[in-house]
């Protein structure tokens, strides 16, 4: 099967050119100003669109196994494809959790039946209990390159230090949900004047920042690599950026809800806005946007967290934390990067190249089981491509999402920029903004 993308702006890491991209049998066969495509090639009109490496999400909760009412690997993959994603890293807090070969293999096998590359983040500790280390080497042998107890952080510093020492020679990376539950425990929104007025227990910024500080020192002491999940405060980002500049092997992601929404959203007690770490202050949002525009951010990651409607339709303190992300992350990132002045190279850096490098999905990392992501749009590369239309405007409708759940905080919001087409593992999965 061949596909030809006509006259898109092809986004390289440093420069962009208008041209055609020919995909044949899962590989980019040719790139040029005007390609003579085979007569049976499916034509995609990419005029006025950006063509770049397919998006990679480092942080997706696919809920399978265990909570299929909220999402399945299949429905999550469809939502991801519509959002322009070619690879998703499935977080391990399923039921049972992904802390062993059996459950990881299950998710990889189910993932292989979807059009996307479904990767797995294995648990750092058994049962995500923060005590005994999970069999990271066995999971790494299956191709797992990221490990996390996401949902909670590894609280015990001796366990975290041991995990870093153990992971380092395996060539895998630990990813931490930084929030000290002893400080944040019981909290439901950002701690501050607003939480006090609303009578809601707060999750202080300090709970996140203290764990970031601790982990940076653990990384310094062990020499291991580490990824910081969904940093939400100005201080957290500044700390990791400074440590990275000092040469520590640290990377971080930020989530669209943290750079587009602030704590004021919680004013009406709508659990759609409940998330961990919580929506922070306006100043934090501004700092995250500034970091994004400066090119300081390694990756935008969704923290896509589906919850069945009946669970999100509860009093604020009883509802679970988390919100959908896959289907609107690209638009929100495009807007935050200053649409229509958004620099497409930065956009594809945070949506694809950066996260692909962190997940070790780049060509040079030769990932087992998965195709290569985050490379250049050049002949010989695996055909994982996203066609993004900056000039399209659309309105989010929670009932029109591909996800099984509806817990988007953006229902009714008009967004700029939309994924026009997604080519994953050489297949046209999304065309004309809909699944094929």
């Amino acid at each position, binding site marked *: 099967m061949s596909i030809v993308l006509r006259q898109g702006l092809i986004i390289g890491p440093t420069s962009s050119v208008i041209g055609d991209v020919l995909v044949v049998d899962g590989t980019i066969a040719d790139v040029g100003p005007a390609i003579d495509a085979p007569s049976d090639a499916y034509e995609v009109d990419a005029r006025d669109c950006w063509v770049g490496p397919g998006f990679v999400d480092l942080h997706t909760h696919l809920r399978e196994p265990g909570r299929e009412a909220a999402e399945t690997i299949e429905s999550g993959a469809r939502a991801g494809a519509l959002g322009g994603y070619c690879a998703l890293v499935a977080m391990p807090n399923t039921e049972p959790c992904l802390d062993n070969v059996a459950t990881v293999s299950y998710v990889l096998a189910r993932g292989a039946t979807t059009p996307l590359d479904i990767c797995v983040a294995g648990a750092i500790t058994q049962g995500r209990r923060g005590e005994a280390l999970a069999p990271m080497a066995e999971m790494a042998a299956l191709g797992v390159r990221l490990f996390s107890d996401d949902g909670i952080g590894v609280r015990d510093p001796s366990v975290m230090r041991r995990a870093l020492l153990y992971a380092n020679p395996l060539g895998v990376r630990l990813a931490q949900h930084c929030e000290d539950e002893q400080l944040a425990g019981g909290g439901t929104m950002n701690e501050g*004047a607003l939480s006090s007025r*609303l*009578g*809601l*227990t707060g999750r202080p910024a300090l709970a996140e920042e203290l764990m970031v500080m601790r982990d940076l020192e653990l990384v310094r002491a062990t020499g291991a690599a580490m990824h910081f999940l969904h940093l939400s405060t100005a201080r957290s980002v500044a700390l990791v950026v400074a440590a990275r500049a000092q040469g520590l092997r640290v990377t971080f992601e930020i989530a669209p809800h943290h750079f587009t929404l602030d704590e004021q959203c919680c004013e009406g007690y709508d659990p759609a806005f409940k998330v961990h770490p919580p929506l922070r202050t306006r100043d934090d949002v501004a700092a995250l946007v500034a970091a994004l525009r400066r090119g300081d951010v390694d990756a935008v990651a969704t923290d896509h967290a589906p919850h069945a409607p009946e669970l999100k339709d509860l009093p604020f303190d009883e509802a679970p934390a988390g919100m959908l992300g896959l289907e609107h992350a690209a638009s929100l990132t495009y807007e935050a990067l200053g649409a229509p002045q958004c620099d497409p190279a930065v956009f594809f850096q945070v949506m694809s190249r950066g996260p692909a490098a962190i997940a070790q999905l780049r060509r040079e990392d030769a990932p087992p089981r998965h195709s290569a992501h985050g490379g250049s749009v050049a002949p010989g590369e695996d055909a994982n491509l996203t066609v993004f239309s900056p000039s399209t405007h659309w309105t989010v409708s929670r009932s029109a999402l591909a996800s099984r759940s509806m817990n988007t905080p953006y229902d009714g919001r008009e967004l700029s920029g939309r994924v026009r087409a997604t080519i994953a593992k050489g297949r046209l999965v999304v065309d004309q903004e809909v699944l094929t």
Partner: protein
Amino acid sequence: MITSLRGQSLLSLNEVSRDAILEVLNTAESFVEVNRRTIKKVPALKGRVVASLFFEESTRTRLSFETAAKRLSADVLSLAVASSSVKKGESLRDTIATIDALGIDAVVLRHRSSGAALQVSRYVPHVRVINAGDGQHQHPTQGLLDAFTIRQVLSQRRGTTGLESGGELFEGLRILIVGDIRHSRVARSDIAAYSTLGAEVRVCAPGTLLPDDVEQWPVTVATDFDESLEWADVVGLLRLQAERGSGAFVPSLDEFTFTHGLTVERFARMRPETLIMHPGPMNRGVEVDSRVVDAAAAIVEQQVANGVPIRMAVLYLSVAGSGESS
């Protein structure tokens, strides 16, 4: 800003104006008289249906609201579920929808989750919602009845009536609130009412029981409890939840009594005319000594008694005050 409670839900006292508060207090004065009659009933809400939904334990607030509704001749649907909606298996939304299907004009809601009353008002926008206490957020009728009680007692002492005193009596009145401010919905509603009415409010508590944003509240924070007791015209005590004292927020209940309890010794040094108030139920021996309770009993009982006319006033204004119904 709510400038009159007529036809309105009452979710919080934060956005209620001075005039609206005085309207409730003045309306309640007339219901005090009703409660002194042999036949303690008026037909104001005849044919109206008030649902009383208590998802959290309560004795006095629930009895007081239901008594108020009955004395206004409303029909009362009463549902007490002393557990979370989740544990019961039915969501809050479904419970409200079920009650609403029976045809109701108002919901009186007590829930352990902050914001529950606002959420319910979104589920049933055509129904008046009266917040009877939501989590750590607000308990507006408590704030109103406390203000009402202060006005009533001080007016009597001056040989006048609450109605004649209006709101002037609160100007510069020194009110001290002591104890677990941080977790208290009563403190939030009391402070909103008192400060809106023009009183000077001080709070005094262990550092862990002050709200994080107290510097933004319309209060001053006092560190010297003993000096503040002498300063105050009114002392509002708050219930210290036992779990706050078990090592979580203060080292022990004894230590709380040592630092912030109204002991006999402290009571002896207070000015005799100072009012001592407590929303109940009291922890005798913790925030207040038993002997002090007995000495102050009159006012605390008056608070309880005033619960009925205040809630009659709130229900009356909120339900009968809506245009469609009158």
